[in-house]
């Protein structure tokens, strides 16, 4: 998962598998937890640049934007 788009696709796939019962809830929860960390770190980056009133390209969100 190199960017947010890939993370989104991975999460969507995990959700579908969880719904279908292909993976255990504990596994899905681990992935969701990890995704939460990645989202939080991206958010911190976005907040940092917003506070500095800068708008550089964020590599993690680059592909999506």
């Amino acid at each position: 998962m190199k960017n947010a788009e890939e993370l989104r696709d991975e999460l969507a796939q995990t959700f579908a598998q969880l719904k279908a019962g292909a993976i255990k809830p504990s596994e899905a929860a681990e992935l969701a937890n990890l995704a939460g960390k990645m989202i939080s770190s991206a958010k911190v980056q976005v907040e940092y640049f917003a506070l500095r009133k800068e708008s550089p390209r964020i590599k993690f969100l680059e592909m999506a934007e």
Partner: protein
Amino acid sequence: MIDVLAVERSMKTCTVCGKEKPASDYRLHSDKKTVMRYCNDCHLAKRRAQHAAKREERNAQFRARYAANANGVKDKMAAARKAKYAKQGRAALIAWAAANPEKAAEAQRKKMKRGRERLSDYYVRRLLCHPERSAVRKVPTVLIECKRLQLMIERECREKR
């Protein structure tokens, strides 16, 4: 002296209960001239029975009519709100919230509850960057989508456990 014949003439026998009653106890037909064959008590009893017999059917009709028009009413109200917002702008909304803080708080609570249930963009954006605590004004859409999916997975896990 009572005019016995006149009283007898005004007396009428009900075709339902068979009792003899004065004409004033009978209803008039819709032409307002001729008197009905059955007395007022029997008439009311008949109407009550009809009402009770058709109660469920009529209620079902009312329910169906309401269900058919409920969304129409909601759409109409939503369109009216939108038109008002377009005409008066956000300033009017802010002024209303300032004038009615309790109503505004209640509306906000309802909006957040709806958002929590549906995981709306508004709710997820607020979770990521609360407008009062964050300097971010535009949260990237992909980040909102990721957060929503994360929350969906967490909810599903909680349900399955």
